[in-house]
């Protein structure tokens, strides 16, 4: 037993290493970018500026995180609640409808959502949040549905037979058992949206997409690379952190 435990601890300690490395690299990138002129000068020898300087990188990062975070909060609440609602007895009729609506959200290109949202919501952060919400809903809804439906029927029946109320069964049995699958959906949704959020720069939502758009407009590949690099590092940091968390959940529920 003790042996097992130390192996577990060892695994988790090793588990956090990766997100920490990516996070550190991201931090180095964000804070150290202004001092890397030498590196980028090599790419764009003739440009007047090789380091994007219309805003600080940490400001861009913070705004990027804000947009993704707000969108994620809304999609998780809406997606998980919808998934729960249509797996209850009373909501079962809406199950196919919700599945289709979520799929529709993802088949609709975010760029098109932006184009349609700007006239209504104006330029800025709001249209991109709406686009990310629609785009990120499907993985969460789908995984919530699968996760809840996959909970062993005998376990649910035993819970009911022991005298648990439907709410207690949901809270203490179904959601904890579906958690790893739901989390996988959240992970997919958030990771995709970190990349997609860069589009916000085209409608005036300033974030890590700014250097990319500015670079494309001005023909400055150094800008593009700086934005892309930081977005990739952010995505890797968040994704690997989710990975560790998922592993832990799975270890706790192993062989269920």
């Amino acid at each position, binding site marked *: 037993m003790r042996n097992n435990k130390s192996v577990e601890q060892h695994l988790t300690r090793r588990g956090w290493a990766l997100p920490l490395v990516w996070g550190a690299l991201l931090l180095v990138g964000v804070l150290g970018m202004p001092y890397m002129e030498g590196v980028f000068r090599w790419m764009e020898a003739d440009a007047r500026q090789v380091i994007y300087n219309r805003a600080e990188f940490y400001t861009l990062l913070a705004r990027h995180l804000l947009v993704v975070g707000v969108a994620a909060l809304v999609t998780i609440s809406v997606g998980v609640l919808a998934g729960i609602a249509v797996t209850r007895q009373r909501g079962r009729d809406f199950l196919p409808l919700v599945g289709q609506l979520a799929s529709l959200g993802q088949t609709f290109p975010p760029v098109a959502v932006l184009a349609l949202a700007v006239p209504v919501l104006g330029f800025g952060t709001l249209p991109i949040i709406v686009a990310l919400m629609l785009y990120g809903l499907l993985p969460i809804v789908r995984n919530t549905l699968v996760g809840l439906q996959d909970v062993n029927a*005998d*376990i649910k*029946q*035993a*819970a*009911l*037979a*022991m005298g648990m109320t439907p709410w207690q069964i949901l809270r*203490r049995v179904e959601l904890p058992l579906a958690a790893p699958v739901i989390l996988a959906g959240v992970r997919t949704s958030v990771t995709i949206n970190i990349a997609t959020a860069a589009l916000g720069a085209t409608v005036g939502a300033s974030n890590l997409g700014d250097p990319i758009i500015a670079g494309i407009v001005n023909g400055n590949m150094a800008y593009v690379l700086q934005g892309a690099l930081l977005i990739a590092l952010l995505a890797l940091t968040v994704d690997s952190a989710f990975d560790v968390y998922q592993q832990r959940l799975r270890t706790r529920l192993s062989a*269920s």
Partner: protein
Amino acid sequence: MIELSHVSKHFGEETAVDDITLRIAKGKFCALVGTSGCGKSTTLRMINRLIEHSAGEITLDGQLIENYDPVKLRRRIGYVIQSTGLFPHWTVARNIGLVPRLLKWSGEDVTSRVSELMNLLGLPVAEFAHKYPHQLSGGQAQRVGVARALAADPDILLMDEPFGALDPITREKLQDELAKLQARMHKTVVFVTHDMDEALKLADHLVVMRDGGIVQQGTPLALLQHPADPFVESLLGGLERGLKQAALTRIKDHMSSLGPTLPAQSRIPGDFSLRQALSMMLRDHSDRLTVVDQQDVPIGELSLRKIVKEAQLDKG
């Protein structure tokens, strides 16, 4: 006491349970036996309202079950199923303490009740309390299932083929333990099984079901002596019926007093069954056995002729 009176259950066009009437007295062990799909599990689940009956009346202690709040009703009725239905993300101790915690017992009461039950079911607390269900063998998991069902000390215990998935040795061991527990606790038990030997071994009252209806019910001995039709007889083992009946008969009730002849070499305790006595006679090539008490003191003797004669008498 559980009473079902002209109870039926329809699923759409299909009739799962067809007009059954059944009375289970307090403290009795009732086994529902039949082939799969005969409605025995449905009958069981109607008692704790996992399935609502379509017609007839079901009463608990004289009260219609519709008058109970289903959640409160279920907390008063223990329930054990073949696949255990243990929560995989909870430890053994937490699984067992589920119903007491639902009933808002204090933390100390739950803890002491859980350890009491774990000891009762042969699960040492130090070794098992913090294990998760996937770390248990089939037999251990089912013990936890039984402990969970008994946790809030319910009067009624519903068991749906609880030992059906276990290997024969573990199954027999758990049957013996259940019989011992029942002798101490006197719960009202409704036990569903397709294993007639299991039913004969455990039940006070045997109910044979087929196609949603009750074919015959009575004590195990009564059914063995007078099976209602060929179906019941085949369930009871056909040619083996005699032996099954012998298995339910204790030596003590059929021995004769010690005669003037020398006592036989082979000794057998009086609590054993006639079936075991027959087996010993075959093994030892002897048509006489000396019956002894728990201190190995001879208290009587048993002869093959007498057993055969008694069996004939019972039949008449």
